[in-house]
């Protein structure tokens, strides 16, 4: 696959979305078991609805973070690097919701020979409601320029490259 370069990521460009489909209680249980998160609001319907007065068991916020990471990682390709990410939870997601993540380039700049793109990142449900929102900064090479170093190293020249304030 061709390396994704700074020149490919104009402002307004949308990365390929990540669509996880309908997230069932089985998916939630699989995640809770994988990370040994035993909080009952994620798998015990009676506890979630009767004790904690929630509408259903909740899809874990920690799981949703990884969907956003995958979105940017995959969207920047094998030569890019997800440097920074911030997000806030706006709404609960419950068992049975269908979730997909989107990212759009909102700003870009070249610093010290590398391309830095700011992305608006969203996690949406089947009703197009935003449940998690934030921003990311990805680093990609310039066409014909040096590769993004791995491990990524923060240089003094990058100090003014900041994530946007919350909206």
């Amino acid at each position, binding site marked *: 696959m061709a390396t994704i370069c700074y020149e490919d990521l104009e402002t307004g460009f949308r990365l390929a979305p990540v669509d996880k489909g309908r997230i069932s209680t089985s998916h939630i249980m699989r995640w809770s078991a994988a990370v040994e998160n035993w909080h*009952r609001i994620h798998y015990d319907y009676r506890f979630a609805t009767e*004790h904690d007065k929630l509408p259903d068991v909740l899809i874990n916020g*920690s799981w949703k973070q990884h969907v956003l*990471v995958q979105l940017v990682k995959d969207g920047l390709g094998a030569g890019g690097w997800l440097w920074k990410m*911030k997000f806030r939870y706006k709404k609960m997601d419950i068992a049975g919701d269908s979730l997909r993540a989107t990212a759009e380039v909102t700003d870009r700049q070249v610093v010290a020979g590398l391309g830095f793109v700011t992305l608006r990142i969203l996690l949406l449900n089947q009703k197009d409601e935003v449940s998690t929102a934030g921003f990311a900064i990805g680093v990609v090479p310039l066409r014909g320029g040096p590769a993004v170093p791995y*491990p990524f190293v923060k240089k003094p020249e990058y100090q003014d490259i900041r994530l946007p304030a919350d909206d």
Partner: protein
Amino acid sequence: MQAAEPKAEDFAKYIGMTGTPKVAHMPLERDSLRRFVQAIMDQDRLYFDEAYAKGSRYGGIVATPLYPVHAFRSPAGSADRLNTVQADPDADGTDSSDGAYSSLPKIESAFKRLLNGGNEIEFYRCLAVGEICIATPKYANVQLKHGKSGSMLLVTIETEYRTQAGDLLLVNVQTLIWR
């Protein structure tokens, strides 16, 4: 008797306090990683295909960039974390030793309700198979705020995740809101 109004100076002493580094009891294993990436539904070959990963810039199988925050599990022989559920049918199943920042001193306050105010993460490197993750938390800021709906305590915890060799993996800045 009414509780005294909290004052900003009550909380300033916490700023800069660092917790004991939390060391994952096991190095990253391929099978744990398999379960993890299946659960997040990410089929990137970097996470399971050795030949593919060797040919990448990573030089071998690595975990997802955000994996280190989940690298800490209960070691064999430790207290059963589900004891609380047996003892109390209303227990929520969580444990006070959960989380990478559990070693920070508890902030004494009358605030009861905890909300997640968001995360800001910087990534530098992925944890590789065979490496051990170490997390060191710090109170970056503890700030009392007064709003229309009353007082709240904004607690910013900055946690550095490194390998046992000291390589920086990521920095997670989490804001907690106590009301």
